[in-house]
């Protein structure tokens, strides 16, 4: 009974994080803001949901597959987000008006002036 309650609490927490991340994906003004909000919230939400399923199912094959899915998500989601952000910045998608600093662009200009090969 306690195990069922804790598992359902983890699943509800994960669903709430998923929903808030999708709300950020809808509301924020910029590609990079949307990427940050959506990737962090949805990764953590899905991981919490899978951990709730692991708590509910215990040490069966179902639960171990849930843990393996948590490992996959934690390994792959930040890499995909980083690749998409880098590609968006290189294809000259502009930042929103309210942004203050663009350190990646400054770094790129310094590297170009220094004479290194800009890969």
């Amino acid at each position, binding site marked *: 009974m306690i195990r069922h309650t804790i598992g*359902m609490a983890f*699943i*509800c927490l*994960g*669903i709430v994080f*998923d*929903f808030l*991340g*999708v*709300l950020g*994906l*809808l509301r924020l003004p910029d*590609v990079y803001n*949307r*990427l940050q909000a*959506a*990737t962090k919230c*949805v*990764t953590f*939400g*899905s991981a919490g*949901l*899978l951990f709730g*399923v692991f708590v*509910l*199912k215990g040490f069966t*094959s*179902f639960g171990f*597959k*849930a843990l*393996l*899915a948590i490992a*996959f*998500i934690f390994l*792959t*989601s930040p*890499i*995909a*987000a980083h*690749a*998409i952000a*880098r*590609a*968006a910045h*290189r*294809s000259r*998608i502009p930042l929103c008006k309210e942004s203050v600093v663009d350190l990646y662009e400054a770094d790129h200009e310094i590297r170009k002036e220094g004479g290194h090969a800009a890969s």
Partner: protein
Amino acid sequence: MKIARWLAGAVVIGVLTYLNFFVFRAPILVKLINVSLFSALFVLYRVIRGPSPADRIIAVDILGILIIGVLVLLGLHYDQGFFMDIALIWALLSFVASLAFAKVLEGRRLDD
């Protein structure tokens, strides 16, 4: 205009929450699956109307992770193990698809 959009979004989310949690009679797990599916619907709005191509790629990436959650909850509801296998394969394939989309957006070839 901004207030009208805010109000429309709040009304849509409120109506969906009321219908899901107070009118629709089902086990609690099915209601949670419905919340995930509504989230996927909102992500599809961003896929269709995204101003730039990067928005669409991000939305497809996020949709893949949401689908993993929906599949796991469906497997819990029907008590079948093969949904977890589909979720694992889906995680790996959506990662590969996101990397390929990022490379295409950057303007390079796939074998670069």
